[in-house]
């Protein structure tokens, strides 16, 4: 335990991939865009996935390879491995389509950049590559402007956090809003769940009450405990530590899953990274709120 990966080397590879593909590792862009069929291409207001829900189920394989990454000559062969299964993709696509349906019910018809959609750069920010994040943020802002986007609707906490922080690094006039700020629940749901909060939504981005409100209005009863699901106490899933030290990341996930299991065998999450990180450790059912209340 406690063996940090070669972060400088990983950083170089991430930056190289971002410059080449607008993604932190090579990915077939059709995997990212395959969920959207009828959305207009581009426009003033766009839904922005950053390919998080789509690719996250396959990131575990990439993380396992990271410690020996410097021995790979190129990453293209990895692209074949970093591909979610059909069932994983079906789930991700359903979540994204549910979010679009909820937005449309609220009177918002977003466009989408399809295979031209860039990744946000969140991994650089979260690993501490601030200078690299600044340079990449400039590129993404330029790309958004070039495509005519003015209002960006994010769908996951890591992307939302990265974009809201662009302003610290590059001046822009893009409006960044999260879908949770724009939608209402669309389905009445009965039953009990417990909840694993997104650290970023809950403690950095001010959206904790927003999604809890939607969940409770939908009819779901949340099983809570101040020592497990309180704002100050609800732990990280461990996912963001994966690129640094996968063993410690998994230990955190194990701790978190054990705590949550004490409250309910049905767990709601609001972040694709939390879902993937907790899934192997949580003995019960995990669902994203966008699978349940929309």
């Amino acid at each position, binding site marked *: 335990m406690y063996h940090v990966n070669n*972060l*400088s080397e990983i950083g170089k590879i991430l930056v190289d991939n971002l410059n080449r593909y607008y993604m932190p590792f090579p990915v077939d862009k059709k995997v990212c865009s395959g969920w959207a069929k009828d959305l207009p291409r581009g426009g003033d207001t766009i839904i922005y996935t950053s390919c998080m829900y789509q690719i996250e189920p396959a990131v575990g394989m990439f993380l396992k390879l990271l410690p020996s990454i410097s021995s790979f000559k190129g990453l293209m062969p990895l692209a074949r491995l970093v591909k979610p299964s059909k069932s994983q993709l079906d789930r991700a696509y359903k979540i994204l389509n549910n979010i679009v349906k909820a937005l449309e019910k609220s009177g918002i018809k977003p466009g989408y950049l399809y295979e031209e959609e860039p990744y946000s750069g969140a991994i650089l920010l979260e690993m501490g590559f*601030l*200078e690299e994040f600044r340079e990449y943020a400039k590129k993404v802002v330029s790309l958004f402007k070039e495509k005519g986007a003015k209002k960006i609707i994010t769908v996951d906490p890591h992307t939302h956090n990265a974009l809201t922080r662009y302003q610290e690094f590059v001046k822009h006039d893009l409006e960044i809003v999260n879908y949770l700020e724009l939608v209402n629940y669309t389905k009445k749901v009965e039953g009990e769940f417990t909840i694993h909060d997104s650290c970023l939504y809950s403690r950095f981005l001010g959206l904790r009450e927003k999604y809890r409100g939607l969940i409770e209005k939908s009819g779901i009863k949340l099983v809570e405990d101040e*020592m497990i699901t309180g704002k*100050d*106490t609800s*732990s990280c899933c461990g996912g963001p530590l994966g690129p640094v*030290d996968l063993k410690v990341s998994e*230990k955190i996930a194990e701790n978190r899953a054990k705590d949550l299991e004490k409250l309910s065998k049905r767990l709601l999450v609001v972040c694709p990274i939390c879902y993937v990180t907790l899934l192997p450790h949580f003995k019960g059912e995990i669902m994203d709120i966008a699978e349940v209340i929309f």
Partner: protein
Amino acid sequence: MLSWDIAVNRAINNAVPKVYKVLSEHPYVEELAKRLREAKLEVLNNLEKYVEETLQSVKNNGGNAYYVHDEKEAQEIVGKIVGKGKIVVMGKSMVAYELGIRKYLESLGNEVWETDLGEFLIQQANEPPSHIIAPAIHMTKESVGKLLKEKLGGVDENSKVEDMVAVVRKFLRDKFVKADVGITGANAIAADTGSVLLVENEGNIRFTTVAPQIHIAIAGVEKILPTLADAMIEPLVQSAYAGLYPPTYVNLTSGPSSTADIEHNRVRPAHGPKEFHLILVDNGRVKANKDSVLREALLCIRCGRCHFHCPIYRAIGNIWGDPPYSGPMGAMWSYIVKGDAKPAMYCVHSGNCKEVCPMRINIPRVLEHIKNLGLHSQTKM
């Protein structure tokens, strides 16, 4: 379940609800914390001036005051004051640990005893501390019993905690009585009066600061506050956010002991120490103060609350950070005093630490900054 998991879960479940209860029963503490942050910022904005004022104030009280840049200078001064073949008792001091004072004094041929129970256990086990105010938190009561059985006798792994405490109390009382020098840290130092504030529950600091003929206080420059009124706030805030409120003892020392009982003339010494020495330490703090992001770390009052809300500490705590600096605050301090950016790399930006920090330090932002510095320089990784 691993022994660390057992020990830290017990500590979290004991400590966290206690802090909530203390803050709810004494809401003024949060107001005091805000005032303390402002007072500490005032000093950091004018650090040189306040260091000078503090040194002069200590001298005005009949004490000796020193400013040291690094570990070597600190050890030399302490070594000169203590000498050789002495009995030294220490009240738990993170800065003394940071500067290797105990080991240095032992190398000179002195008998040195940690007197805080947790730190005493650490000394006996020859292990690094695992928490800023509860250094032996990684030990279960069973492992403490086993250790004391080996070192002092009289108890074993099945003994009650009360009996374990009694065995150490009996052993250390003898050391307090015979000690030549007492060494402590400082929770706060008042620039205007040169007074040192120390908060504790065990009574070991009282003994350490009063029984021996020489008292040495060693503290980082970030412990200075503008006035005695400001400095008095710190022990209250620190103990409340550590969940130990009210503190059993708050000690105030302004120079060597004195009496004014004859014609109201203040004469030194009286019954307590005849010498008082304050050693103010830089060791990376002044440089950190010049960095607008790192400066925030200097506001830390070492209550240790962030540890109990941090998923990383819970997962790997007792080996995360450079001793004595563990936990989220330790990841900041490992960089400030050791130039070690590796602990910061482990921050998952869960944000719990910033939510509970009484000084409102955005610890994840400081650690993000350290990550960036570490990744772009040749600092220790």
